[in-house]
């Protein structure tokens, strides 16, 4: 590792429960996510892809191995330091329930900065809001926004802090195909144009095709890796896994 990568996993394991009821979810995953790359983490249900993301992003603690964000080993951090890493160095986009219902769109976007006691760079906020076409929606509350708009607000929130890496967990799962395409296109552009590192968990081959690389997980291990994946290539690997 010559250059410090924004996110990396070394022999990451996670086991739920103990003794007879122990269920291994990750069985030693090692991966590097280079700066400015857009990676799709794929796999069938129960493959461990969500667990992998949770451990890598400091949302959950791994049982063994190490997760690094910007070179910082998360396994040595206490809850307070881990929370700070999430706040300052990671952006999140979840499948649903991304926004606080009591806050307006712009308040939601600025929430991580607010929690850190920082103020937003107005130029950066304007750029993010403009490119996501949220300008006329800023004072609306989540209940007044469509699903696609809500997810775009979530992406704006993830980008506005300038994080080392953005984790997206099935970001298009609850969207119609048109909104999903707009959203994925925006993620790809922010990777290409802004050099933003993105890790996206998905089970949708079309969504994965927007990424530079696809990692395929099965039974808690990385079983394959595709560069510049196409939907057909991904589908092919997925079928072979299911077989």
């Amino acid at each position: 590792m010559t250059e410090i990568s924004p996110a990396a996993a070394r022999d990451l394991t996670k086991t739920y429960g103990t003794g007879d009821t122990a269920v291994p979810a990750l069985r030693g995953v090692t991966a590097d996510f280079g700066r400015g790359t857009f990676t799709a983490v794929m796999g069938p249900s129960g493959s461990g892809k969500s667990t992998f993301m949770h451990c890598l992003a400091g949302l959950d603690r791994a049982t063994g191995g190490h997760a690094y964000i910007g070179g910082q080993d998360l396994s040595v951090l206490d809850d307070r330091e881990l929370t700070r890493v999430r706040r300052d160095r990671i952006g999140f986009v979840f499948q649903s329930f991304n926004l606080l219902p009591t806050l307006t769109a712009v308040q939601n976007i600025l929430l991580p900065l607010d929690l850190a006691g920082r103020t937003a760079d107005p130029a950066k906020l304007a750029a993010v809001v403009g490119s996501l076409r949220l300008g006329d929606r800023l004072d609306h509350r989540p209940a007044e926004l469509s699903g696609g708009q809500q997810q775009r607000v979530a992406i704006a929130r993830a980008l506005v802090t300038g994080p080392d890496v953005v984790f997206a967990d099935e970001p298009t799962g609850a969207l119609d195909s048109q909104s999903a395409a707009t959203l994925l296109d925006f993620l790809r552009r922010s990777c290409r144009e802004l050099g933003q590192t993105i890790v996206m968990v998905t089970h949708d081959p079309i969504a994965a095709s927007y990424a530079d690389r696809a990692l395929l997980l099965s039974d808690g291990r990385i079983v394959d890796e595709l560069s510049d994946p196409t939907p057909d290539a991904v589908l092919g690997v997925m079928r072979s896994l299911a077989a």
Partner: protein
Amino acid sequence: MTAVPRTRFPMARNALAELRLNPHRVIAVVVAIMISVGYLTASVTVLAGESATFEQSVIARTAATDVVVTVGAGDPAEHAALATRISTVAGVASADLSFLSQGRVTGSSDWVQQQSVPANPKLRWADLTEGRWPATPGEIVLGSVTARQLNLDIGDRITINDRNSSATLTVTGLAHEGNSLLSGLAPRSFVAPSFYSVAGSIHTSLQTEILVIGDGTVTQDQLAARVTAVAGGDRVETSAGFTQRKLAEKTQGVFIFQLLLLVFGAVALLVGSIMIVNTFLILVAQRRRQIGLLRAVGAGRDQIRRGLLVEATAIGATGSLLGVGLGVALAACVAAVLDGEFALPAGQVAAVAAVGVMIAVLSVLVPARRAVRIAPLDALRAVADPATERRTSLARRAGSLGLIALGLAAIGLGFTDTTVALLYSVGGSFVCAAGLLSATGLFLPPLLRGLGSALRRTGPAARLATDNAVRNPGRAAATGAALMLAVGLVVALQVGAAGMKATADGNLDVRYPVDVTVSMFDGALPARATGDIAAVSGIAGAAGVRSSRVTVRGGGKPRPVRVLGPGADAMAVVSGLHPPVSAGVVLADPYLLDEIGLRDGGPVTVTGRSGSVTLPVRADHLAPDEGLVVAPQVLATLDDGAPVGTVWAKARPGADVTALRSQLRSAVEPLTGAEVGGGLSAKLMYHAALDRLLALTTMLLAVAVLIALVGVGNTLGLSVLERTRESALLRALGLQRRQLRGMLAVEAALLSLSGAVAGIAAGTFFGWIGTHAVSGQLNLENVRFSMSVPQTLTVAAVAVGAGILASVLPGRRAARATPVEALAER
């Protein structure tokens, strides 16, 4: 073919499963019912024990007696003769006289009751714990509690003064005296019958009875009939009948206390039911999807409603059972501490428990109405923000405001000069308070927002907390209303008591112009008395006043009274601004004026040892009880040799009255026959009585405040459950655990602060109204408004502090979950 089990009560099973699986959601409701029911149970049980203790003391005195003859006022010699006559009646074993009187102990304002103990050992009903029974007129036995209060022991001497006599007695023993919570029993002492009947005794019995014991040959009723034939006009009763009459006369005090306890119990129940309704509304909102699912798979509206009723009944029954246990345990402790009787009024306790269950069931009716409106489709709607509550309807707002206006109008009428002012004030206050409570939805959310905006600057956690506190205005209003009611009542009482104290102080200056008086019934005080009294620390000045005994003649019979002639030095120690007594007027105790049938301003003739005057009379409290005040030169006309028989003294403002009284007592002790009086004791008694009442009522209302605070914790706890995913999102985005806990603490503080602020404002207003109304009823003038800022701030601090404390458990719960666990929870 397999047999399919049929469930008879599917909704009941669902409801009970819900309770089993999620007990923490209803635990606060159970606690609220437990506290209310426990409080009421303890009240009725303690009162039953008190009544039993009281009955024992009434029954004990005549337990060995068969017939009681109550003799009217008259010559003691005639009473003795009657007793002798009765003892010769066939079937009578013995007939003994029993006397009762009351007197004030020298050097204190304490009244002690003297009961004679007949020589007949069968009639010595009290237990002697130490020493021996009084045998001569100069001996006395004190009740053990009374002796402790007066700080007297065997061998000590005690001086007791009644209206026209004074006696110094030696304590020869102590008798067991049950302690009573309600002080329904007066401080008690026992003297020998000869105290009243010895030749030349001037002690008057207030109530004389002849206790008759039969020889067992006839029944009580027959014996009573035979005694009646001898006794003539006096009242003859069997001892059973006598006891019953005494109990009926004396349980009045217990009854008033019972009423007070029950009123406060009702307040606790009201606060509890506001909280229970609120909790069920939250539960219904949280179970929207679940109820929708039940409707989708075929549950009818009735079944949904029945399920909730079963749940409420189970909760009510659990809370009531626990409450009865708690209350009985408490009452048993009280009985043990007071060494009193313990009696369990099973019927009343059962009724209280039933009320607990009923409150729970009634409280669920409104939430149930909302639950049955949930559509099956709601099961399918994924994102449910329960914040969508109906806004307060226009009709309800108008109703609330109408009630407030009506109440205010009635209160306004109470300020005008009408005979039913108290009724207007009290009724108006109730109506106005009901309006305010139903209007909490209108003013509490803006108040929350206003209080929150002050906190917004302190950080993101406070900002989020403010938003959360007002996102569900109905819920916040109901939580605040419960607290507002409880805090409002406490503050109303505090302000009322403070106002009454200030008003009474002003009126006491007029009513009791002299702080301390030391006076002889007749004759002179020793020359050094004035100096001794002036030397007592806390006394600002003392002056001797010449006095004499005169005869006053108005419309009716001539009457012997005391007359004082205060000089300029004596007028200088009078409180307030009292003009010097003019030589052309006689000032009389207003009550005396009434008694002898004189009208204010009419002429009165006063005859003394050396002369007589006829002057207009005026009512003035400067005159001693049943006495007169004239100018010194008028007194010289009436009695040219009038000695200094009275000392007037003024207390230093803010002097320690208790210390002053105890020093005064030792200064006056050697002066045989001197009696201490004056407004200082009365003022102290007023203050002590008000303070005791305030402490008692505050303690009783603390139960309501406690329930309201449980409600704050409950609302918060349930909101935290409902916002689990939101908390998780915040944690994922970088909110520290500490900040999350802080956020909930701020939310709790805002909820309790808004309730407390509204309660204090309302309580201050109603307390002032109450002071005004009660003062008017007592004919006090110049009503003053007063409130104790430290007291009120303490209430606010307790409410807010306890509110924050109530956020600890929900806060820990919310902070414990890792973001992933919480995000996964659907």
